[in-house]
C-alpha cells in the first residue's frame, strides 16, 4: 500500500516540477525548488495560499543540492536547502538565507515483528551501521541497547540518499559529531558512502526501506508517518531515550540561538537537553539579494510572510516546528536586504 502512495506522491512532485517550469513566467505563480525535507509542509501551505489569494506557489522537491544549484542559475524565484550556506558563500553568490521551519530526521527500519518505538539506537551505533562496521541486526552493539527485543540474525541493508541532500548533510553532521570514526567519510550533502544502497529523495529512501527486509534508512519524520514506516527511538546527548515527536523536536529547537548566528548559519543536530531529539534540523530559503524582478520577489516574500503568520497550525499538524516569533521578527528585518537593481528594498 505505502509503496504506491509513495509513488503517487513522487509522480505529483514530477508533475509539479513540469508545471512549475512551464508556469514560471505566468505572473501569478511563484516558483521554488530544493529540499524534499520540508516538501510536505510547503505544498500544504501552497494549497492554502492559492485558495486564499489565487497566487500559486510551485515547489519542485529536487533535493537541497538542486535548490542551491537552481537559485544560482536563477531558474526559480527562491531556492530551499536544509544545508545552510556559510556566510562567505552567501556573500560570494549574492544570496541571503532565512530559516523557514524546523523538523526531525528519524531512523526508520524494516524488521519483521518490530513496531515503531520498540527499538532504540544511539548515534555511535548508527554511525557504525552506516560505516559498514555493524552488519547484522543481532550485533552486540545493537543488542546492548535493545535488551528484551528479539533481533534477527539478519544482514542490515543500509539505505542512504543517492542525490545531494540537506537531510544527508544534517545526518552526516550528527554522525560526525557523535562518532570519531565518521571523519573519514565527512559531512556534506552527498558523501562517499562506505556501505548501503541509494534512494532518490526522502520519498525514494522511504520506498526502499519499505520494500527491503532488514533495512535501515533516515527520512524526515512526515515521510516516516505518511509511508507507515517503523521508526526507532534514539539516545540523545544527555543519554536519555527520546521518541521522535513534536515535543522532542521542539525541545531541540528551543536551544537554537538564532539571534547570534551570522547569516542564520545554525545546525540543530545533537542539541543538549533531556527531551531533545538528536537529529533535528532547520530548513532554509535562499534568495538573491539583488532582484531583477522586484515585483516577483515581493510576491515571494508575501507568501513567506503569510506562511509565518498563518502556517503554524499546518506545520504542527505535520510535526514540523514553526519558527518562534522572535526569529520571525529577525527574519523580516533581514528581508530589507533584498533589493531591486537600483538598491531599493523590494518590500517598500
Amino acid at each position: 500500500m505505502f509503496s504506491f502512495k509513495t509513488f503517487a506522491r513522487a509522480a505529483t512532485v514530477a508533475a509539479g516540477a513540469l508545471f512549475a517550469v512551464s508556469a514560471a513566467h505566468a505572473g501569478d505563480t511563484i516558483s521554488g525548488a530544493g529540499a524534499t525535507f520540508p516538501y510536505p509542509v510547503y505544498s500544504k501551505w501552497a494549497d492554502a495560499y492559492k485558495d486564499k489569494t489565487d497566487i500559486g506557489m510551485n515547489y519542485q522537491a529536487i533535493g537541497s543540492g538542486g535548490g542551491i544549484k537552481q537559485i544560482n542559475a536563477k531558474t526559480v524565484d527562491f531556492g530551499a536547502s536544509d544545508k545552510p550556506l556559510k556566510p562567505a558563500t552567501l556573500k560570494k553568490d549574492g544570496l541571503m538565507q532565512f530559516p523557514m521551519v524546523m523538523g526531525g530526521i528519524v531512523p526508520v527500519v524494516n524488521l519483521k515483528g518490530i513496531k515503531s518505538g520498540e527499538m532504540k539506537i544511539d548515534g555511535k551505533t548508527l554511525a557504525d551501521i552506516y560505516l559498514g562496521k555493524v552488519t547484522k541486526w543481532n550485533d552486540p552493539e545493537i543488542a546492548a541497547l535493545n535488551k528484551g527485543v528479539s533481533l534477527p540474525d539478519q544482514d542490515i541493508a543500509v539505505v542512504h540518499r543517492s542525490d545531494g541532500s540537506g537531510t544527508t548533510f544534517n545526518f552526516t553532521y550528527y554522525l560526525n559529531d557523535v562518532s570519531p570514526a565518521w571523519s573519514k567519510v565527512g559531512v556534506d550533502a552527498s558523501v562517499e558512502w562506505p556501505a548501503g544502497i541509494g534512494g532518490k529523495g526522502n520519498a525514494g529512501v522511504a520506498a526502499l526501506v519499505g520494500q527491503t527486509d532488514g533495512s535501515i534508512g533516515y527520512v524526515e519524520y512526515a515521510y516516516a508517518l505518511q509511508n507507515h514506516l517503523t521508526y526507532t527511538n534514539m539516545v540523545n546527548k544527555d543519554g536519555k531515550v527520546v521518541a521522535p515527536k513534536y515535543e522532542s523536536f521542539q525541545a531541540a529547537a528551543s536551544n537554537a540561538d538564532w539571534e547570534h548566528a551570522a547569516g542564520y548559519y545554525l545546525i540543530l543536530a545533537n542539541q543538549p537537553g533531556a527531551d531533545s531529539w538528536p537529529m533535528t534540523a532547520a530548513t532554509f530559503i535562499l534568495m538573491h539579494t539583488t532582484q531583477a524582478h522586484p515585483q516577483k520577489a515581493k510576491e515571494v516574500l508575501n507568501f513567506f510572510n503569510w506562511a509565518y503568520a498563518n502556517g503554524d497550525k499546518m506545520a504542527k499538524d505535520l510535526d514540523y516546528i514553526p519558527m518562534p516569533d522572535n526569529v520571525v521578527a529577525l527574519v523580516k528585518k533581514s528581508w530589507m536586504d533584498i533589493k531591486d537593481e537600483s538598491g531599493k528594498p523590494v518590500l517598500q
Partner: protein
Amino acid sequence: MVESVAPALQGVGTRKSRFAMRWGDPIFWGATLFFTLVLFALLCGVIAVLLVGGWPALAHSGIAFLWTAHWNPVTDTYGAVVPLIGTIETSVIAMLIGVPFSFGMAIFLTELCPHRLRQPIAIAIELLAAIPSIIYGMWGLFIVVPLFQHHVEPALKTTLGNIPLLGNLFSGPPIGIGVLLAGLILGLMVLPFITSVMREVFASVPPVLRESAYGLGATRWEVVWRVVLPYCRNGVAGAVMLGLGRALGETMAVTFVIGNAHRLSLSLLAPGTTISATLANEFTEAVGDIYTSALVALGLVLFVLTFLVLALGKKLLLGARAEGAEGEVLA
C-alpha cells in the same frame, strides 16, 4: 515483378514543368544533404559539449579519472571506474539473458510456430517494447526485489555461492537490489528489440533456400544452424548491437533496482551503479564546478564506450562478410 512495379511508375516522367525538370533533383539532393549534415553537426556538437563540460574534471583528476574508483563529493575526488564497470557488467548480463532468449523466440516464430499464432505472438512481443522503462523499474522494485531477496538470491548463495572462485560472484547479503537484478531487468527490456529484428531477418531468408535444404533431407536444426543463420549473420549481429546499445544507455529502470552505490564489489548481488544511473541521480543536485564537470565527463566516457562497442560490432560484421558467408551458404 515487372507487372507489380509498373502501376507505380505510371505518370512518372510526364507533365513536368520546366522548373521541376531543372531544379527538382538539385533541391532534393540539397535537402537530403542538409538533413545529413544537421545530424552530423549534432553529433559533433554533443562531443564538443561533453569535452568542454568535462574538461575541468579531467584536468582536475587527469587521466586517473579512468581508473580511480573513488567518487567523493566531499573531497572532490572523482573516478569513473565504478559506474563504468557497472555499465559493462549490467549490459553483459542483459546480453547473456536477452540474446539466447531472443534467438530462440525468433527461431520459434519463423520456423516452428503454427502460422495462426505467429502474428499474435509477434505483436505481443512488440508490445513489450512499448512499455516505458520506468514501469520496468517499478515492477522490478516492487515485485521482483522481494522475490529476489527471499528466494532467488538465498538459493544462488547456497548453490553457486559455494563453488570456489565463482562463488565470489554470489557473496554478500541478499538484499534483492543489485547488479544481477539490474542486468536481468535490462535483459527483459532488450528482449523485444532483439527478437523483432531477428524475426524480420529470419523471415527474409528466401523460401527456396529452406526448401532445398529440407529437400536434401536436412533436419529443422540443420536448416536453422546451417542455412538460416549463416544467411542472416549480419542481421543477427545488428540485432544484438541494437540491444546492446539500448542496454548501455538505459537509465530509469536501472536506477530503480541497482542500488546507486559507488562501491566496487566482486559480487553480483552487491549494489552498484551505472553511468546513466549516476547522471540521473546526481546531475540536478551536483553543487560545485568539479562535481558537475565530473558528471559530464562520465557522459563522455559513456559516449566513447558506446562508440567503441558499435565500431567493434561493425568491424566484426565486416570481417564476417569478408570471410565469405555466401560461399558457406551456397556450398
